[in-house]
């Protein structure tokens, strides 16, 4: 079954050659358990186009974490079709999903997930461990990535010596290594004070300006409002708050 409901009507995306959405969910459902079944996601249609900054908002328990897990290939949908960079993920085994995940998605977690015994640089270098990148130049690429988030002067620090904002920027640097197709952020400001959160959003704005595709899950309206497009998920069902066509067109032209 082919469902085009998530496809935008405007044709200018084709002009840039970016005719494929990074993420396309078609009637995706996720049900947990059987007796009684819990419907975490119901018939979700979502397309995220290259260069978009999408925020996904919703109260806790609404299903936004489930959505993130499915988009991030950490979980499998129970119904519907999901194409990531055009690849139907249902056909992939664990190895294939891991490879696709490692190459196309950069994750940013609420709790940063930095290895405490490794320096910031080593943590960033972890990003290339599983994707078949050559060892040669790994350190340089990691430094370049740290430079991109303004953390190159902390490269040799242990993460425990950094502030929360710095740790999260280190995590973003790790996610950016190798130019992912999608930066998938799960409550990235959840552990940060408002000042750190603000400067982190500035980093996101810069990345988005550079053409990176961002999907940010949050329950913070301030964070959500910085995105060009907002979708809301309530009881497993998805609504567009900002129409995909509004305010996003210029991004794809860049």
């Amino acid at each position, binding site marked *: 079954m082919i469902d085009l409901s998530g496809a935008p009507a405007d044709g200018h995306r084709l002009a840039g050659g970016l005719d494929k959405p990074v993420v396309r969910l078609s009637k995706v459902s996720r049900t947990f358990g059987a007796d009684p079944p819990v419907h975490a996601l119901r018939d979700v249609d979502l397309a995220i186009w290259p260069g978009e900054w999408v925020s996904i908002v919703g109260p806790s328990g609404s299903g936004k974490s489930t959505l993130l*897990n499915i988009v991030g290939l950490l979980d499998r949908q129970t119904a519907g079709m999901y194409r990531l960079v055009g690849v139907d993920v249902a056909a992939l085994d664990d190895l294939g999903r891991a490879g696709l*995940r*490692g*190459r196309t998605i950069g994750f940013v977690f609420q709790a940063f*997930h*930095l290895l405490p015994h*490794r320096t910031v640089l080593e943590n960033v270098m972890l*990003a290339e*461990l*599983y994707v078949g990148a050559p060892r040669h130049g790994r350190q340089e690429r990691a430094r370049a990535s740290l430079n991109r988030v303004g953390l190159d002067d902390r490269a040799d620090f242990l993460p425990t010596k950094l502030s929360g904002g710095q740790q999260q920027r280190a995590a973003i640097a790790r996610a950016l290594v190798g130019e992912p197709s999608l930066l998938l952020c799960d409550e990235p400001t959840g552990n940060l004070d408002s000042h750190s959160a603000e400067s982190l959003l500035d980093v996101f704005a810069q990345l988005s300006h550079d053409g990176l595709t961002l999907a940010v899950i949050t329950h913070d309206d301030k964070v959500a409002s910085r995105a060009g497009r907002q979708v809301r998920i309530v009881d497993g069902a998805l609504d567009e708050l900002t129409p995909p066509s509004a305010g996003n067109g210029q991004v794809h032209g860049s």
Partner: protein
Amino acid sequence: MKLRRRGRSGPATAKPRLAARDLFEECLASLLARPGRAVLTVLGTVVGVAALAATDIVVTPKTGRTGRAVRQNVLPWDAEQRVGRLNGVVAAGTLTDVNVKGELVRAVPVNDPQGQTQFQVPVKAASPGLFRAVRARLSTGRLPDAGHSARGDRVVVLGPNVAAQLHVTRVDNQPAIYIGDRLYVVVGLLSTVQRQPSLLGSIVIPEGTAQREFGLTAPGSVQVETRIGAASVIAGQLPLALNPADPRVLKVAAPPEPRRVRAGVQRDLNSLFLLLGGVSLLVGAIGIANVTLVSVLERVGEIGLRRSLGAARRHIAAQFLMESTTLGLVGGVVGAAVGTLVVVGVAASRAWTPVLEAWVPLGAPLLGGAVGLLSGLYPSARAAALEPVEALRSTM
């Protein structure tokens, strides 16, 4: 192919892979993050492999304290004095079978028509030093001395079996026996001898007496007791000391070394070490398994992160297997070294010869690695089975 790859680029669906060198570096970094724990974990394997390594190192005691016999009819009458001068000889004496020409032995005067009163008993001639050389013990009486021999006195010492046959139980009443028709006074009764057990069933007369009464022409053999470890040296010197003109006509009989006893002791020791090693290895394996499992549970967040970075289940399993195998391998190497050092040290302090089997330096690390690999199977399976969603819920 390599040139086409840059960063995460390349086909998005390409299989993830983990280079062996990366895997090894990750493993080392994880182990070195908690060095104390790694050291403690390795200890069990160290002890186990050390004990097993010790099992296969054979200790060979040097030649022990043994008696020596020299037989030939060309021995000089002063053999006892000649041998006694050799350094390392504790005692020496001649022992000769006396040809009594079929004469029977009887006690005096027993008139028992029912019982047998005359016996054919071997008679042996001994120099005074012989009794020390065979470590004879008396139950009563005394031993003949050089004076008896020089004078050719008709005195005898009875072996316990002969004494029982002749019903001689005491010497304070000066019992006498007949050999043929000649009367001999019993001066002592033997109870035990350490060597030449044939003495227990013999009548022993002084060498001089045998010369005079039975025409003994030369000593038949020399019994020698040496100090511990001197036996082989003495054995080489004996022929020269006894017959310098033609040492080759003498036959030196060294009693077989107690190899079987030693082999038995070694076998018991080996099975003890084997048991000890096996138990220690088992404990070591459980220790590694336990620590690796704890490590997995502690690092759930890290596992989740690695999955998010593109690690497949097999890569997670490989990492923890590598860590447990490395622990076992290090334990094997250290254990082989410790085991070898201990055995060499003990052998050196006991003047033993340690023999190191070829498998120890190669096999011990492999054994340790195998133990580590087996220990890591369950924890790594647990780690690989973790769902990334669950794993990422845990903070680091």
